[in-house]
């Protein structure tokens, strides 16, 4: 039985931690084989996703390797079942296996597809493959198996290499699933226009749309790591106003022309203590709305002139001021107002405002 030295154990332990510090699912393959290559070097290390229904294989190589030529890829698909490791599935699904475990060099060289059209063109002699486990979460119904494959030009894979790969195997799989979960979460959050801040006002997470809105409404550059000062002052004010969880905070409204950005704050406290801790964070949920009151008023079914008059009434103008602003006579203004009252079923301008705001749902909009 092979045993690992203290140094080897330390290196393995450190690589395992590195694997779990990866958090980008899309780059997982290339980063994982970089880590693996330091422990078990090979001329061509690769991360592969095998789809057993379509027999499609999707490879990830290190950046310095140009990839397989179309001819090689074709040969690989055609001679898929000629590969001794694939031929012995499911026994070979539980760990690292190399071609030379099953056939000797002579037999391999006589294989028309696998060797002559594929491994030989790569100038490779041995191939070690290790499937990691089943992954069905990417597309429902499409079963994929993530795996790693190492190519060497010599028959030089040792039992120690195999042992280290087998020890890495559960971690490659677990870390792959973890980053996939993390990505799913990020995708779910992409539905929402969200900014997550730490307790110092630094941006921990921001969606693309939110960044664009902050740029538009607060004129900050999208690459900024800090939220705009004015917004941060508002957040801090809300946060210190009270730690009453049940209270909903009034949203902040920032108007630019006839558009409005509505910012809602959710304070997330991970601990029950009243003091801030590192784990606390602020969530801002952004929403853009057309704030044009005039446009909303048109839905009330009044005439164009009546709508205009009502708009000015809501803005607190007197009849005289309205008449001047609209260049109509005071009596015409009164007539428009009267018919507006009639349509809304009210007796006074105060009531008209109350009625309008209620109909538009503005009053309950906090």
């Amino acid at each position, binding site marked *: 039985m092979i045993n*690992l030295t203290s140094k080897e154990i330390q290196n393995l332990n450190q690589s395992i931690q*590195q694997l779990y*510090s990866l958090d980008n699912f899309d780059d997982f393959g290339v980063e994982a084989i970089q880590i693996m290559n330091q422990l078990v070097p090979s001329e061509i290390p690769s991360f592969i996703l095998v789809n057993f229904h379509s027999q499609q294989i999707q490879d990830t190589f290190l950046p310095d390797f140009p990839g397989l030529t179309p001819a090689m890829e074709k040969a690989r698909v055609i001679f898929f079942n000629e590969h001794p490791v694939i031929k012995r599935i499911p026994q070979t699904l539980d760990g690292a296996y190399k071609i030379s475990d099953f056939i000797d060099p002579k037999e391999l060289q006589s294989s028309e597809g696998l060797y002559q059209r594929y491994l030989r063109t790569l100038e490779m002699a041995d191939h070690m493959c290790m499937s990691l486990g089943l992954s069905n979460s990417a597309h429902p119904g499409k079963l994929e198996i993530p795996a790693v494959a190492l190519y060497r030009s010599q028959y030089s894979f040792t039992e120690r290499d195999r042992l280290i790969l087998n020890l890495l195997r559960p971690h490659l799989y677990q870390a792959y699933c973890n980053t996939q979960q993390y990505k799913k979460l990020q995708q779910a959050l992409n539905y929402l226009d969200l900014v*997550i801040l730490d307790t110092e006002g630094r941006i921990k997470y921001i969606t693309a749309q939110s960044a664009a809105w902050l740029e538009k409404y607060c004129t900050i550059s999208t690459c900024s790591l800090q939220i705009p000062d004015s917004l941060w002052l508002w957040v801090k004010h809300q946060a210190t106003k009270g730690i009453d969880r049940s209270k909903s905070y009034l949203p902040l409204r920032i108007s630019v022309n006839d558009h409005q950005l509505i910012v809602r704050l959710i304070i997330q406290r991970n601990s029950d203590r009243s003091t801030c801790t590192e784990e606390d964070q602020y969530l801002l949920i952004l929403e*853009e709305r057309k704030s044009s009151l005039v446009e909303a008023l048109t839905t009330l079914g009044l005439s164009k002139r009546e709508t205009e008059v009502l708009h000015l009434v809501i*803005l607190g103008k007197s009849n005289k001021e309205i008449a001047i602003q609209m260049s109509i006579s005071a009596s015409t203004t009164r007539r428009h107002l009267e018919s507006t009252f009639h349509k809304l079923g009210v007796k006074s301008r*105060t009531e008209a405002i*109350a*009625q309008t705001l209620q109909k538009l749902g503005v009053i309950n909009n*906090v």
Partner: protein
Amino acid sequence: MTSLDFNQIQKLNHSIQQIYSLNDYQNFGIQAISIMHRLVPSDIPSFHTVDIANCYISDTFLPNFPGFTPEMKTARYRSFGEHPIIQQAPKTLYGAHKISDFITSKELHSLEGVYQQYLKPLGIEDHMTVGILPNKLTGKKPPKKAFIGLALYRAQRSFTETDRLLLNLLCPHFFQAHNNIQQYQQLQYPLNHLSLLVIDTAGVIRSATNQTTTWLTTYFTTIPYATQIPDTLWSWVKKQIADLNKNPTKTCLPLRILQNDRQLIIRLVTQQQKDEYLLILEEKTSTLLDSLTNLGLSPRETEVLYWVMQGKDNNAIASQIGISSSTTRKHLESTFYKLGAKSRTEAITKALEKLGFL
């Protein structure tokens, strides 16, 4: 040099994977010590977080241990500087260290606070701590104020070098996994606290958070576990989609469903993948009256303003809240003054402006 045999490496390797498969932030501590306990058993295993700024230690134990008594906790705080591992800090803050590394049994027994009031009542003779300081670790930004650690208590001085080695090897993983789960939790939180409903283009529910399901049953009286969203809600969604198709720049108003003094607000989000719609549900208990309290008026003034906004005249307001009409006028005048308004119309406008409606 201590080394591990193959069996021990396999057990360690398995434990490491288990640590990273944890996904419940709240229970991380207890699950982490269960994993540690199987690898390095002790009479009392514990997980703690130390908030340095606030001198606050919170301990987690396995369910069968009742925890420290208040006397032990006090003794621990008071004799903090007496503890040999703390005395040797900062070099003992990272990695596994035990009391018996530094002092003999006899010396330990002579410690009034640490031994007589804290370890002895527990029947404990040795204490190994595993500091999980972030600085030796790769990866993400480490937290500044709090650090986490593990502690193992044994009734005998029986910790071996293999125990120490295993704990030292596990140590970076506890940190990394804690960091990962924290990062995950921070993204998970908004999803848990927002109630979302994803439906396909035929109104069939694709996913709903727990809160959403509860609200759908309370506000729509649908059967729980329905696969289709309530008919009324579906008609509303279809209407909004039709409107949006006619005029894509239009923003659709949320749907409000009133029930007693609560209302459910439903917003529709379409974008991205065209074959599904997202509904964001929000419940508001706050009424207009609640939001008016943000204006800084007195309770009475707020109440009067509320009725003004409902279109009531002074007499109606007076009888509504049971005060005289002259008092009503007085409240109204001071409200006008505070809002900088001259008429009731202006008062409404100013109030709405301040609350951000106009």
